């Protein structure tokens, strides 16, 4: 298996605090890797180490199959948008992009325009970045990251500040980059449902530790299915549920019960509850999504 990023016990320590603690993460070529974690979990620090902006305290980092000092040579193949987009406010979109292109030695005619077209900023003209909305700055940040046609794109919260249409456009763009250009993408986002729509593999980091790394298929399997009963009489409902042989259940709130047993006979359960004089407001099978799974894993 060829990994674009392969880390072994990668650690970043600031004083006594370990921002990233022995993270061993694997990103396959051509996949979109969703990086999930709370604020301060260590996502940005990890991304900075991969991008070459920060030096690991210990551990191994292999990029594009090369490790040690050889790995550093491949940092030029990584485009990044980490935290806020780094832009000169007094300059326009094209000028900012031109600066990055100059630094990378790209002089191709019309290249900057094509990048702006890709992120939908081709019509900004001479408008200064300081007059841009947050979403426009974010798009320009992505365009900057795309400059130089990187093989690995690292995007830290790229849809921050974007409206739903903008989020959808960025999602389309990422999928297009993956399918058409075989670009590998490491992306973190607070909008987990959005991440779920694009990522092939997920890494969940909590307090600097990578607690789980799983594929989308594995995640779907892990996201448990349960039956949710909405009733104002939870005390009356519990004995009925037990009488029917379902032991794996939990009273979530004063009017909600979750039964985690599989093969629930919904009709029979509904009848039994009604016979016991329990008013059932709703009875349905629900599947946990990424957010529930994430919250469950990172519960302190």
């Amino acid at each position, binding site marked *: 298996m060829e990994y674009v990023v392969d880390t072994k016990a990668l650690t970043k320590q600031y004083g006594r605090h370990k921002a990233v603690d022995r993270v061993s993460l694997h990103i396959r070529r051509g996949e979109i890797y969703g990086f999930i974690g709370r604020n301060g979990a260590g996502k940005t620090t990890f991304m900075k180490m991969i991008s070459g902006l920060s*030096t690991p305290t210990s551990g191994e980092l292999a990029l594009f199959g090369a490790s040690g000092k050889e790995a550093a040579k491949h940092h030029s193949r990584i485009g990044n948008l980490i935290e806020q987009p780094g832009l000169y406010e007094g300059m326009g979109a094209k000028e900012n992009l031109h600066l990055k292109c*100059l630094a990378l030695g790209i002089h191709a005619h019309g290249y900057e325009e094509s990048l702006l077209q890709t992120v939908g900023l081709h019509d900004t003209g001479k408008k200064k970045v300081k007059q841009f909305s947050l979403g426009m700055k974010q798009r320009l940040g992505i365009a900057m990251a795309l400059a130089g046609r990187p093989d690995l794109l690292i995007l830290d919260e790229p849809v921050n500040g974007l409206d739903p249409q903008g989020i959808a456009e960025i999602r389309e763009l990422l999928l297009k980059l993956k399918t058409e250009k075989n670009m590998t993408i490491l992306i973190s986002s607070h909008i987990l449902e959005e991440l779920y729509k694009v990522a092939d593999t997920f890494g969940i980091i909590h307090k600097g530790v990578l607690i789980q790394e799983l594929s989308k298929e594995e995640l779907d399997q892990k996201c448990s299915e349960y039956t949710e009963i909405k009733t104002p009489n939870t005390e009356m409902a519990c004995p009925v549920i037990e009488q029917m042989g379902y032991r794996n259940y939990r009273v979530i709130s004063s009017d909600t019960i979750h039964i985690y047993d599989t093969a629930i006979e919904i009709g029979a359960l509904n009848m039994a509850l009604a016979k016991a004089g329990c008013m059932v407001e709703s009875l349905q099978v629900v599947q946990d999504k990424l957010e529930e799974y994430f919250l469950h894993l990172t519960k302190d």
Partner: protein
Amino acid sequence: MLNLIHMNLYRMAKTKSLWSCMLSMVFFCIFSCYMVSIDYEMHHAPNAQTVGQENEQSGIVGVYEGADAGEPESTFGITVQVPEKENGEMPAFLEFYNSDLASGIILLFLSIGCVIYFNGEQKSGFLKNIAGQTRHKSCIFLSKIVANMLYILVALLIYGVTQFIALQLILKGYGPIRFGTEYLSETFLLLLANFVLYLAFLGGISLITTVTKSTAVGITVGIMAACGLPATFGVYMEKLLHVTIVKYLVTTNMHQLLIGAPQKNVLFALGTGTISAAVYYFLATVYFTRKDIV
């Protein structure tokens, strides 16, 4: 490296604050020329004593000696030594020019511009866009030395042109101002020494700005240093601890660089500037390479 230099030059051309610093310097140059005219009015007033007469009494001659360059600089602030001829003749433009360069006034504006330019990349976060993809991070810093060099050259040129025109206009009542071609070769050496000293000074300011990441600290230190604060401390250190540092300071050496200065002083200034620049830029490059980009 060439790509980064290219990027820096493009950014310099587009950075308005740098041009604002240059414009302020131009205004200050005109103001300085106006003050010269006031000085000459006073000197030509009845009962006025010329520098020549003063020097005759004190046994020293020429513009350089008139600057009391032999004594360590201990005053805080910037003083432009107005050149005076022993025979009361109007000095040439190059004498005025070199006198202003030695005062450190250009350094004041250069240091402000340098801090704004150096910290701009860090503060805007633009550094994150290029630092990872640049093979050697040191190149990002080293490419700015070229930017500093160009900035100094442009400043020296703009100051010279402005001063030449301003002197012609403001002092036209005292007759035409000669260019001073006889000082041309001497001026080249003085300019080279000044250039190296300025580069060293900006290297020191760049180092402070890179470490503190603060525009306010960088500008404050730059202004204080250009005004001679290190020399003031140096004099106290010399008197209290008997440690001689004043003569190795960039500003002290710069104040010596007047027309007529002994060549050994100019060469010493050139050496001090070269060593200081090498040390400052080396330290800043090492620090920049090892620190994380935040």
